[in-house]
């Protein structure tokens, strides 16, 4: 065994866990760690401009690549700045390991300079967290943290290390085995339950699959496709489940929820058997719980038993890893013709098209997203913020593969887009990444433009600039009698701002400029920003008002259609 410092052990362990990129920001108590970094040239450190950026970058890195993202911050304010990003990962179950320094052990609990009880703070927003009090515990902690982050239902894990633990010398011993007696995720589904589920599906006239983020993290897209094709079951996804089932497949009926497709919401409401797979029956997806398709038999397949029955009563629960459960289930399913049911949904879609882009005089964001889809043939990865532009990016781009839409769904974190896109670009360097930004959310984290330049990323940044907190404005218009309060956002000239950072910039104000700008961005090998000046009054449709049922989905009103 070799004697090493805590810092060396930490970096050695990260390297052994396959970490090649660290998103971080130095500060007092992590100086020993930064001092050691040059000894590990295989680990690239990306200096962010704010710790929140580091947390979102690690998250975006994880979502795009499927690998664990790692971020790093100092104690106190550095650590608390990570909190929004960690909570974002937690709500969307993405594997991130967040590492913070803390004050030396002798000062812990004494309110020393830059001390915050950060493990106390992150405890309810992490899958697990650690305060490491001895250098000899670092190796096992890192192994456990990565294991916990990436297995079962993934999630963020936080490791807090006091300054003098980084400096402490000890024998390094790479633990070969992990023994967490309180953590044994169930992977194989209960065979009796799977048979019951299959029987219910086989008997069903109008079954529907609602597939979620778990299909993507469970790497079960193919298994889902094979199952749906065998039994001819239509598939709708949740917002985070987009891409888990190919959207151009004839069995794909888009996604459901507050801004989901009209026909998807109606199909979910009409189905006699609802099969939720790798999803959690969230309120934004299901509408008013008590009126979500009250007559349907609900089958729920998920790796997290606590999600079963949490929001909706479940008739048939199957706890397990979708990658293992779906093939088992498929075996018991009958090949069936369900063309009547599919035709029913097709007819609803035909009569109530949700994705038609109407002719308008002014430039509307839907058209930009659709042009981007057509120009890229659906091959790009879109990373969005939160709000109207997010919904349009989900609706008007069609995703045939997992990990092509990166978005903060559960926590709904504005400002996620730019740093998450940077992380996505670094995690998948050969992908074409578009950060689809709102003009307000962009201003929350725009300092990370500097990172695009530092790292010479070929990132394309598209701002849907309507001068408003668009989604909030929409709600004030529809539900608060057009009493518009604090929603008009003044903004800098984004092109000048980009220029100041050394990022190339284009401004687009007319329809005719859209395609050339997109083409120019695609051909440019470096960070480029397009400031799209779009119609200010455009609303997202369809819409299930907060607290309404899916059956009460509202389509675009006549007066807006005519606009």
């Amino acid at each position, binding site marked *: 065994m070799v004697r090493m410092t805590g810092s060396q052990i930490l970096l050695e362990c990260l390297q052994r866990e396959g970490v090649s990129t660290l998103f971080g920001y130095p500060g007092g108590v992590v100086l020993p760690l930064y001092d050691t970094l040059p000894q590990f040239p295989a680990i690239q450190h990306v200096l962010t401009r704010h710790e929140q950026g580091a947390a979102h970058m690690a998250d975006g890195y994880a979502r795009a690549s499927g690998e664990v993202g790692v971020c790093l911050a100092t104690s106190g304010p550095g650590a608390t700045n990570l909190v929004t990003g960690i909570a974002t990962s937690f709500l969307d179950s993405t594997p991130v390991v967040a590492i913070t320094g803390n004050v030396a052990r002798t000062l812990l609990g004494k309110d020393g300079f830059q001390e915050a009880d950060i*493990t*106390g703070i992150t*405890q*309810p927003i992490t*899958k*697990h967290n650690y*305060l490491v009090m001895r250098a000899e515990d670092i190796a096992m902690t890192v192994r456990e943290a990565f294991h*916990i982050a990436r297995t079962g239902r993934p999630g963020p894990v936080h490791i807090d290390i006091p300054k003098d633990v980084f400096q402490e010398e000890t024998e390094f011993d790479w633990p070969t085995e992990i023994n*967490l*007696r*309180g*953590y044994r995720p169930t992977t194989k589904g209960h065979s009796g339950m799977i048979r019951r589920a299959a029987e219910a599906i086989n008997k069903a006239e109008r079954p529907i699959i609602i597939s979620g983020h778990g299909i993507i993290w469970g790497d079960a897209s193919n298994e889902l496709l094979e199952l749906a094709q065998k039994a001819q079951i239509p598939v709708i996804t949740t917002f985070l489940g987009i891409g888990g089932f190919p959207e151009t497949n004839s069995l794909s009926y888009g996604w459901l929820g507050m801004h989901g497709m009209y026909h998807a919401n109606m199909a979910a409401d009409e189905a006699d058997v609802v099969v939720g797979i790798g999803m959690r029956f969230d309120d934004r997806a299901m509408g008013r719980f008590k009126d979500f398709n009250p007559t349907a038999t609900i089958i729920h397949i998920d790796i*997290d*038993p*606590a999600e*079963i*029955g*949490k929001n909706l009563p479940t008739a048939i629960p199957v706890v397990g890893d979708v990658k293992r459960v779906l093939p088992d289930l498929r075996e018991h399913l009958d090949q069936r013709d369900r063309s009547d049911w599919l035709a029913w949904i097709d007819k609803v879609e035909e009569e109530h098209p949700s994705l038609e882009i109407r002719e308008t005089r002014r430039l509307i964001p839907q058209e930009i997203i659709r042009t981007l889809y057509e120009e890229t043939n659906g091959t790009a990865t879109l990373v969005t913020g939160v709000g109207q532009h997010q919904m349009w990016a989900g609706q008007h781009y069609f995703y045939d593969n997992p990990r092509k839409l990166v978005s903060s769904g559960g926590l709904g974190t504005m400002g996620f887009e730019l740093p998450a896109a940077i992380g996505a670009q670094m995690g998948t360097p050969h992908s074409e990444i578009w950060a689809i930004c709102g003009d307000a959310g962009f201003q929350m984290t725009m300092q990370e433009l500097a990172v695009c330049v530092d790292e010479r990323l070929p990132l394309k940044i598209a701002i849907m600039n309507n001068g408003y907190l668009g989604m909030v404005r929409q709600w004030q218009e529809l539900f608060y009698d057009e009493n518009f309060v604090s929603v008009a956002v003044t903004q800098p000239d984004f092109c000048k701002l980009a220029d100041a950072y050394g990022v190339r910039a284009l401004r687009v104000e007319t329809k005719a400029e859209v395609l050339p700008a997109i083409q120019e961005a695609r051909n440019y090998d470096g960070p480029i920003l397009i400031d799209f000046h779009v119609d200010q009054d455009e609303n997202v449709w369809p819409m299930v008002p907060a607290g309404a049922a899916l059956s009460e989905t509202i389509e675009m009103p006549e007066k807006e259609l005519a606009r």
Partner: protein
Amino acid sequence: MTTGNGTRQAQHTVVAIVEDKPGVLQRVAGLFRRRGFNIESLAVGPTEVEGLSRMTIIVDGASAPVEQVEKQLYKLIDVVKVSDLTHEDAITRELALLKVRCNNVNRHELLDIAGVFRADVVDMATNSLTLQVVGDEDKINGLITMCQPYGVRELSRTGTIAMTRGAKTTTVHESEPEAIARVHQSQGRRVESKELPFSSD
């Protein structure tokens, strides 16, 4: 109205075997706060296995479906095993210390009451005596009610602890039940028919 094990109907008795690590109590308490589960009583102590602690939690069942409580507890990495003893035949016990006002005239009455409740006198002064009582919640409530006319000067009671009757255990390791049974038999305890360990209440 009480269930078989002496807890009120809306109450659930949940036993969690947890890693004996710093911060575990906060994780459990934080989980209950965040999910809106009300804790009526909580008792924490070591188990027969080194490194594991046992938490007995009485949950207000009206605040949460007990199934969710169990599942959410299981999600904590440091929680090794969760058991719901609500509908089990289980022994539940609390301990209480009561300092009751008394004088030379009524001290005997109090001692009679203590006798009925099998409470021990653990301290005595000229104008007070301190009783220690062990039992389920109802028994302790009963003693308190009886003492109130004299003046309860101070009351301290523990959380409830619980254990199933019969051979069934809520431990993590089934550590050689026959060997344990032999030890207990050699100590002259009563062993119920087929059940290995010992219901001697």
